[in-house]
Structures are given as C-alpha cells and as structure tokens.
C-alpha cells in the first residue's frame, strides 16, 4: 500500500498538480487513492456516475464511444502525465465516454464527491483545482476541434466507373460492291464523261 505521504509525493511529481501549495495538497491526499488497471479494464463508463478522476502515472487510457455493431471508436488517448476524467466536476456528474486501459495503467484516483465537498468548504482549494482543470478542458476542446478538421488532408480516392447497359444499335450493312471499287468506278466514269 502506498502511504499518504507517498501519495502526496506522487501528486507533487505529476505535472497536473505540480507546484501546488502543501496545505492544499494535503487536502487532495485525503480524497486520493493509488490504482492499477490491467489492459482492457475500464476506468469509467459512459453514463455512469463520474465518481473519480485520474492522474495517469504510467500507461495509456483510451477514451472511447461504443458503437453498436462496430468496434468502439477511440476519440483520444491519455498518456503518462495527463488527466483522465472531468465529468466529476460538471453536473450531473456522469461520465460522457468510456475510458479503457490499453495495457497496464497506473494512476492516482480522486474521489469526486469527497473533493467537491472540500472544494465547497475551502474556496482556495476550489480555485486551485479549477485553475488546473479549466485549461486542461480547454486544451481537450481545441484538440477535439483540430481533430475534426482532417488536418492532414483526405486521401485521394479513385472514382469508380459505373457500368451501363445500352440498347443495341442498328448495324451498317454492306452492299455488294466495295467502296473502293465504287470510287474507282465513279472516277473512271467521270473521266469517260468529261
């Protein structure tokens, strides 16, 4: 088990809460837990209560949408040093996507209810947490927009040619004499006539 002191140290080292005031960090530690997810395990599921958020320490978390009849669509991946989950801070506190561990994920989780209560009681903590969450959320939003742009350009697709059915058309029928012979004859005749 990780001791609260060690938790505080881990929190301090993670870029997200880097440099946070000692007293505030102590408050955070009270809501934190060390967690480990094996590959394929879900950190949270779409529609369920957003009970926690995570500081990812190692491994990658895929944020996904489940599509019936298809593979789930990965919207983004969250890696070491980043945060997974922000629905805990936004009413009605339900997760908007699935989060699944790709490979082993180690993270510090924070209990949302616990933290919200402390934030309400201590505006300094509330401000500090929001001050760090809002830029992260803004970054996610702008990244999502860029991702929509098809920034690197679509690939060229060769156009398919449709096959068509056509009515058979009338054939030209030859006559008993070749055109060359007729021409020659015409020329001869005209010579004779002139």
């Amino acid at each position: 088990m990780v001791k609260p002191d060690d938790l505080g140290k881990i929190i301090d080292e993670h870029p997200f809460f880097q440099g946070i005031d000692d007293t505030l960090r102590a408050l955070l530690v009270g809501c934190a837990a060390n967690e480990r997810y094996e590959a394929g395990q879900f950190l949270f599921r779409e529609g369920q209560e957003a009970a926690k958020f995570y500081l990812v320490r190692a491994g990658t978390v895929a944020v996904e949408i489940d599509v019936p009849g298809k593979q789930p669509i990965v919207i983004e991946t969250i890696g070491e040093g980043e945060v997974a989950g922000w629905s805990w801070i936004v009413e009605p506190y339900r997760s908007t996507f699935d989060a699944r561990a790709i490979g082993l994920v180690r993270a510090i989780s924070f209990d949302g209810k616990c933290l919200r209560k402390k934030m309400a009681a201590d505006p300094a903590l509330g401000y500090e947490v929001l001050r760090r969450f809002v830029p992260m959320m803004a970054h996610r939003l702008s990244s999502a927009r860029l991702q929509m742009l098809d920034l690197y350009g679509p690939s060229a697709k060769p156009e398919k040619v449709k096959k068509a059915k056509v009515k058979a058309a009338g054939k030209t029928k030859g006559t008993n004499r070749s055109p060359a012979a007729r021409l020659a004859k015409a020329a001869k005749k005209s010579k004779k006539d002139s």
Partner: protein
Amino acid sequence: MAERKRPKLAVWKFSSCDGCQLSLLDCEDELLALTEEVRISYFLEATRKIEKGPYDVSLVEGSITTPHDVKAIREVRRQSKALITIGACATAGGIQALRNFKSVKEFIRCVYAHPEYIDTLTTSTAISDHVSVDFELRGCPISKHQLLEVLNAYLNGRKPNVPRHSECIECKANGIVCRMVAAGTPCLGPVTQAGCGSLCTGKDRGCFGCFGPMETPNTAALAAHLKELGCSGRDVQRLFRSYNANAEAFRKESETHG
C-alpha cells in the same frame, strides 16, 4: 511503340443549333489524326454507325428542354466515364433559356395552343442542372482549339489549359486595345470567361459574353459602369441576357435591371 487503347468517344445532342458539335468536324487539320487516337462510337451528325456504350468520353451539346431530355441525359451520364458539356446551351441553357424569364402564364398560353403535339418544359437548363458533369467547355459556339485542347489533355492525362479568368487578360495578351476604355464601347469582357481569342474586340465591337461568366464576376460593378457609358437599364439587361442568360451571375444581374 505500344498501341495506346483508343478511348470511345460519343457526341450527344440536346436542344441546340448543332454548331458546337460541328466544331469537331471543323477541326479539319486534326480530325483524321484525332480518329486515330479516339474511336468515334456515337456521333449522329457524322456517322450512322452506332456502337454500344459505355463510352470513355461523352461530349454533350445542347440544353435540357423536354421531359424526354431529362431522362435521356441521365442515360448518357450512366454510359459515360467522362462527361464533357460543350457550349453555352449545355453549360448554361443557351439562348433558348430566354424562355425562363417569361411569365409562366404567357408561356403556358404558347405551349398549350397545341398541347397534343408539343412536349416541352417551361425552362431550358444546363446539363449540370440534371447530372454531374466532369468538365464544362464554354462558348457560343465553343472554340475548336479549346475542344481539341480538352480532348488532348484527356488523352495525355493532363489538366486542360482552359482558363477561367476574364476575357480582358486574353485581350491584353493578344495586344488588343480595350474597346471600352479607348472607344467607350459597352463590353462584357471584364466579367466574361476568356477563350474565344478576343474575337469581338478584335473586330472593334464589345464582348457580348458568349463564353459566359468568368470565375468571380463582379457584374454589379460592370453594370454600374455600363450605365455611366450611357446604357439604359434595359440595355444592361439585354447585354446580360443573351447566350448565357441563365448562367447564375448573368441571370442575377439581368434581374436587377430592365
């Protein structure tokens, strides 16, 4: 050298004067060479021989003016790998699109005098209003040089050199003195697509827009200037309302005058 497979060419006609397809026969110096490179599979004006589709390239002349045309052009599209429309009728509805500006009432009176004989639509519209078109060749009539250029570019897999800019650029390159500036002659050149070879200006007359609107035509600015030159609203309307009357930019401008 390996024989290149000759693509099949078809020439189709809708409502028109036949002048644009005649342009193909007017390529006197190139016609025989052309037939060595393409196989003429359907071209009623030139041959009674008809080959089955699909066709590699279809040239389509004329505008859509009857219910039968509407069906026929879809069939042509289905049979054509590349569909190239040729001429103002096919690209903008042609002179016969002037009917589009008549009141429906008046028009119905015309049509229904003998409804049992005649089957016609109230509008004359461009081919691209009905099916997708791969390339539009402008002009009333088209320039045979541009026609050859498009076929040539197709055969050689390159982009056709058919500029979309104003006729003025062509005039200046040809060393023609601007009729509007130097003689006060009303001219659609600044809003008309190049390609004719500065024909009218070369003959001391103003451009009447037979190549249709250029890529970004500022018709309002030109119309204002035409009025400064002494044109009445009606004159301006007539100018924009001729062989490419139903091309959007010209149609809209013509509707604000009169």
